[in-house]
């Protein structure tokens, strides 16, 4: 469970987030949406203790995150940034996933028997055992994303934060990855927090959404509450239609190009 209490944050003197407060409950699949540059990634970085907020606090299980050491924190929250540059890293897939076990290792960071067991189990779960000896910089985009998820899972945290886990993946890989996240959320009791650009994907997978506008929370609630025509049109400054998906009964958003409007 996470509590964000009146957080303002930014880079140097450029304030990006202004007094954000919200709560992330057990079993939440929590999506953060909003325009580019509105502070979605900044919010995630604050949650992951990568940026110190100007003011306000973040609590995990009712304890302020400032009181955790990096190592303790790494056992509670795992983070997958939007871009992880692996082009110059020629580690094998197994070595690469093993980095996720660092918080559990001794000072020399030598993996123990238990670390091997955990990594093996995760590779089975994600069905990537066949990739174990491949080099990380030789994999396709979809495979690489799975390896990065495996690395994050190796930290065995209750909360996992993803910054746009499906950007530049094809829809097959995208559904594959999000299916894994849903499985983790439903069957392994992980709290998933993520940013998404695709509103329909957000609607389909998340049970809670927060819509950011100019660094503040514009709307917070279930997809049905957040994805309404009025707010979306204002925040994204474009014309949209919001309908209900006949099969999943979740809202879906269609954007209208200028030409259609004129007609």
């Amino acid at each position, binding site marked *: 469970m996470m509590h964000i209490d009146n957080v303002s944050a930014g880079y140097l003197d450029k304030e990006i987030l202004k007094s954000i407060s919200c709560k992330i409950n057990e079993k939440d699949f929590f999506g953060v949406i909003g325009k580019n540059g509105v502070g979605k990634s900044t919010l995630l970085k604050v949650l992951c203790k990568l940026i110190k907020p100007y003011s306000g606090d973040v609590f995990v299980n009712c304890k302020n995150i400032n009181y955790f050491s990096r190592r303790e924190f790494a056992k509670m929250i795992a983070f997958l940034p939007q871009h992880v*540059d692996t082009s110059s890293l020629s580690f094998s897939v197994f070595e690469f996933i093993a980095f996720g076990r660092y918080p559990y290792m001794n000072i020399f960071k030598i993996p123990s028997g238990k670390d091997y067991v955990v990594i093996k189990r995760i590779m089975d779960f994600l069905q990537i055992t066949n990739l174990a000896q491949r080099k990380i910089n030789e994999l396709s985009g979809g495979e690489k994303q799975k390896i990065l998820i495996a690395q994050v899972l190796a930290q065995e945290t209750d909360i996992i934060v993803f910054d746009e886990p499906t950007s530049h993946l094809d829809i097959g890989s995208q559904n594959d990855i999000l299916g894994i996240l849903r499985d983790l959320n439903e069957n392994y009791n992980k709290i998933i927090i993520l940013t998404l650009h695709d509103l329909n994907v957000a609607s389909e997978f998340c049970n809670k959404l927060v819509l950011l506008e100019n660094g503040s929370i514009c709307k917070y609630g279930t997809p049905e509450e957040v994805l309404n025509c009025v707010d979306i049109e204002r925040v994204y400054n474009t014309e949209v239609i919001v309908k209900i998906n006949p099969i999943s009964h979740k809202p879906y958003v269609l954007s209208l190009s200028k030409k259609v409007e004129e007609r």
Partner: protein
Amino acid sequence: MLILLIIVFLFSLVYGLNEVSFIKVLKALLGNVSTGDTVVMIIKQVRLPRTIMACIVGAGLSVSGCVFQAILKNPLADPFTLGISGGAALGVAIAFVFGFQSVTNFFVPFCAFIGMAISVIVVYLVSIRRRFSSKTMILSGVVVSYIFSSAVMLLFALSPSNSVQTAFMWLIGDFSNFDERLLPFITVVILASIIILSLFGNVINAVCFSDEKSKTFGIHIAKNITFLFFTASIITAATVSACGIIGFIGLMIPHAMRKIVGMNNVFLIPVSAFSGAFFLPLCDSLSRILFSPVSIPIGIITNMIGGFFFVCLLLKSDGTYIK
């Protein structure tokens, strides 16, 4: 690997200004020849320490090259990227130009060491303010070395040419006039640092990631980089005090080894140490044989080989490799 090392070691003992038979070298090493023999004297008191020094320095430069490439996240970094050479050069230039070296031989390594310590501390103080971002570290290293080298040029321009000549030889890396009394000290320092760094291979791996990612693994970036930076700098400083600035070893050996064993520093560091210990005595033998009876500074050999090595690598690679 070990056998290769021993072969090179013996090779380096055999070849030199005076040709000595292989059997004689073995005998001299095993102590079967009377101590009055000049050949034995040459082998035991000149070539043996020199070869040991070449092995140790080769291993040290290779390992510190690996570490600097990891912490600077840049495959083109080497032990001298962060301005250590500039500081050392200034120290040496001062020692020679002001004639300190005539007081005692220890003054040259001592001055080099002081110069290096100053440059390392300057780079460290600049980097710590920017949380050890690799760009800042490289930039400050380059700037520091420019400032120091211009000071060296200034000193050289103002001083008589004979002292410049000796200082110059020293600056390109030369084994011919090192002080054997330094050998035990330098050996211990470099070997200890190499062992420590080998043990921390996995920690060095983690530093290769983006800072953000390493932090989320629970790694204290600043603490680890400080530790690695100083350990690697101590190795470099020890090698420079021994024999001046030998270029390209710290760049070439880790590169070549990375092609063979991959990027995992747990393997890369010991393998690089061995190859460096193998390669530098070989270069040293070449430096004595090529223009015999004149022995040229070893830095010329390593820079030449290194240059050709990288040209070949660039021509062969598909361009993806320097990122």
